[in-house]
């Protein structure tokens, strides 16, 4: 671990940050009972992927420079930011509608449909 930290910053370091964000997001999505907490977990997952895309887009960060994504990776990241906003808007509207009908935002209360 110390060795990893002592190295000059490369794509691997960014990927580690991305992976931590992703895992935090997945844990948040699966364990939170509050719908808003789940939505926050989703944002974390999307941003973890974003960090990956940016790290992969930069040739200077990679030993195999030829495989850098270049502008593609950065454009993807910008699109994902917009998309995350759109998704959050729709999901919040749906959560609000759920709250109006059930008086709670606890996803465990969504248990009428089963079988």
């Amino acid at each position, binding site marked *: 671990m110390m060795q990893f930290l002592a190295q000059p910053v490369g*794509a691997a370091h960014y*990927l580690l940050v*991305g992976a931590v964000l*992703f895992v935090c*997001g*997945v844990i948040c*999505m699966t364990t939170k009972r509050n*719908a808003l907490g*789940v*939505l926050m*977990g*989703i944002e974390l*997952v*999307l941003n*973890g*992927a974003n960090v*990956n*895309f940016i*790290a*992969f887009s930069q040739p200077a960060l990679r030993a*195999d*420079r*030829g*495989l*850098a*994504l*270049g502008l*593609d*990776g950065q454009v*993807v990241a910008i*699109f*994902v930011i917009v*998309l995350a906003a*759109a*998704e959050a808007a*729709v*999901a919040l*509207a*749906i*959560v609000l*509608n*759920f709250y*109006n*009908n*059930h008086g709670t935002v606890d*996803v465990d209360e*969504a248990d*009428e*449909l*089963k*079988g």
Partner: protein
Amino acid sequence: MTFPELVNSFFANTLDLSIPVFMPEIVLSGTIVLMLLVRIFQREPRFDVAWLALIGSAVALYYACPLFGAPDLKQFMQDHPTAETFTGLLIHDGISAHFRTLLLVFLVLFIIFTKLSGIPDRIDAPDFFTLVLGGVVGMCLMVASNHLFMMFLGIEMASLPSYVLSGHLKGRRKSSEAAIKYAVFGAGTAGVMLYGISLIAGATGSLHLPTIATQLSTMLGDGTLVGGRLAAVILGGLMLSVGIAFKLSAVPFHFWCPDVFEGASAEVNAYLSIASKAAAAAILVRVAFGFSHLPPPVPETEPVAAHAVEVADAPKLLLVSTAAAKKAPDSNLMLVADGDANGAEAAKPADTLAPVRGFIAGLIGVIAALTCTFGNLAAYGQTNIKRLMAYSAIGHAGYMMMPVSAGLVMLADSPTDAKTAVASVAFYAIVYLFMNLMAFSLIAFIRNSIRSEEIADYAGLIRSCPILVVCFTMTLISLIGLPFFAGFVAKFAVFASLAQAGLYGLLVVAGLNTAVSLFYYIRVVKVMCIDPEPESRLPVYVPFLPSMYVVAVTVPVVVLGLWWNELNEWVQMAANTLVF
């Protein structure tokens, strides 16, 4: 690249090549804008936006359908040859033409259906049709995507409206619960899929599907796909399959399907089970085949690629479009081009992509078998007709996935049979359109009359509306896959491709599932025809026009069961142009 060259390539690629085959999406987008404008300038909803949506989708269908302007698909593909549009983001080929036509035919029929069934009402119509048309635009992008990020955007464009549509009945507890489950689950799987895409892109250095295939082939050829890179590609592939499995409602990502179907209205169910599923099946074909075969030589006519060839001074196998042109001085592309050229010289080189193909085929085969079995077994004990149809949809997703696996197995040795397997997916999607549209329109019209969707309340329906029950019975028999209805032909094509590929295990699973599905479909028929009518049921009355609609969408189910040859030729032609 100098500025004038850039402008020239923009005109040649975007305006001359891409826009003409992109007209359906443009028309749909224009219609959406018009519908929103109508909403702004009209305080009271005097004008029903459904008509506007109907006209817009009919015009889009006119541009998309090969039958208008060209006598058949072959002629259409000659007029608009297979080409990557928008610098390789999308691809125009037989599969995209076929599935886009299917989606737009469905859209036209669907708008008529909602007009007859009364959901949405006039006040909700602008919102509802904006979402529906927006979702269909996303699905059109999905079926034509040639780039992993375009695929992701298409899936999201199709998903977001679906979340809202499933919660469209605002005051209902069940509807809002369905929407929240669908949105949370869908957004979660989309996030996982995006992370998977980022891993694949990082490991292979591209998001463009043919470039990824070439890159993988090169890496497998010279043994550089090892260690972390191999792990990234496998993990990325599995995460990507999570997103696609969610759209297809394949096990183990099917939980949302029954709940959403029960909570949402029957109209939305028709939309989700037909359009969404057809687009997901198309994307499965695209991704599975995109990863596992090398792209063909670039068509000579493509101007941008020609330019790229000039720049890189590589043989014509140099990869496509501006993605190539942009990176041409880059070392990796030269590498790609070299590897590819070597392969071509060796004339049928060692099949480097075989492990990729084996992995994907195995994954799809296992998931298909599980999906099919689970869907059919779980449907058995259902009491709500919409829930039953949801499990039936899961089962049919399994049948639709099977030929993809078979096609991948046969791809190396007999590409013609692989194309036939893909054609059977395309055929199944068409037949499934009419079967499910019929079933859900009947469910909606009966709901309007008796305010119930319980199977028990369908008892003795044959004495109130015999014609509809006969139609529904025919559709159910077709869903089972018994002769002589369209479902039989579709299922026969699927089974034939499985037998051809030698996947006898999968064939046995599919056969047993068909036998199991017999029981729960026939139980509905038995309840409708034999059981005595319940005391408390409201009188059943389905007006003339809705009845006619139900009969009209049943006609193809019968006709395609007897005269399927023309459609079969059509889907064969569509599959032929899937790049090989």
